[in-house]
């Protein structure tokens, strides 16, 4: 994730320790994938109580972009920053491969650089990516256009409505199971993920940079 931002996107990025109290000096927060606390109890269930999560919640309420990828998505769900929950993949296997995603909503701070319904190739690597929410929540997600990415063609984990990534109501917190940071150059097999990060920067510049 760090390399994708620093070397491919070309922006400043810091590693932030889980004990950190403040994220005030940052314009955007990225929660990367991994196996926090060994996925003990439930993926992300313990990490959501990390000290730094208070600062993440504050950044989210301030409208700053917050991106959670894979375990990061699971942590955002457990922390209640995004609705719903993750279950074990339907076929019970850890799936590790490149999948096709459809950009269902390209009018957000995370997807403005993509075309509507553009299909992109992004790798997934997870055992618990089977997204679930109740009927009422699903209706709200659909009505508010909060579903940003859906698996196109082959749903690898059985997630509801082929959901691969969703945002919160205000559209500044995105959680997705696929790894856009692992698709930022042709050397990695796909550069389709780079536009996600470019979208965030583009939106930030439009809002914060004064041009004469």
């Amino acid at each position: 994730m760090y390399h994708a931002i620093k070397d491919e996107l070309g922006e400043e990025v810091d590693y932030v320790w889980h004990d950190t109290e403040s994220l005030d000096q940052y314009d955007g927060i990225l929660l990367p994938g991994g196996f926090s606390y060994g996925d003990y109890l439930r993926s992300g269930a313990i990490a959501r109580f990390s000290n730094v999560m208070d600062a993440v919640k504050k950044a989210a309420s301030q409208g700053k972009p917050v991106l959670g990828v894979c375990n990061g998505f699971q942590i955002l769900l457990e922390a209640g920053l995004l609705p719903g929950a993750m279950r074990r993949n339907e076929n019970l296997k850890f799936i590790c491969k490149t999948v096709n995603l459809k950009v269902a909503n390209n009018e957000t701070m995370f997807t403005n650089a993509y075309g509507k319904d553009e299909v992109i190739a992004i790798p997934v690597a997870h055992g618990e990516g089977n997204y679930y929410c109740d009927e009422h929540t699903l209706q709200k997600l659909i009505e508010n256009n909060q579903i940003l990415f859906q698996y196109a063609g082959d749903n690898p984990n059985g997630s509801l409505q082929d959901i691969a990534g969703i945002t919160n109501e205000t559209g500044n917190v995105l959680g997705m199971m696929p790894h856009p940071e692992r698709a930022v150059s042709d050397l990695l097999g796909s550069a389709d993920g780079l536009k996600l990060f470019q979208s965030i920067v583009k939106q930030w510049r439009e809002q914060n940079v004064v041009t004469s």
Partner: protein
Amino acid sequence: MYKVKVFVTLRESVLDPQGVAVKNSLHRMSYEEVEEVRIGKFLELTIDSTDSLDERVKEMCEKLLVNTVIEDYRYEVEEVVVQ
């Protein structure tokens, strides 16, 4: 001293793929009478005597031990005599 036994199960409306896999295995082992299998978790907490034990156990469950979006829970409290 108390031993609190917490039983966590998937909500009825949530599909349980592990349970289905286990049921199919049992069928292949010729235990065809099994109609459904659902898999849950069992947690055992040893707790020092405290006021409002029930309230605090419920809080522990709903904050950390259980994901109330997809799980249900119940618990039993057993007093343990300290030797």
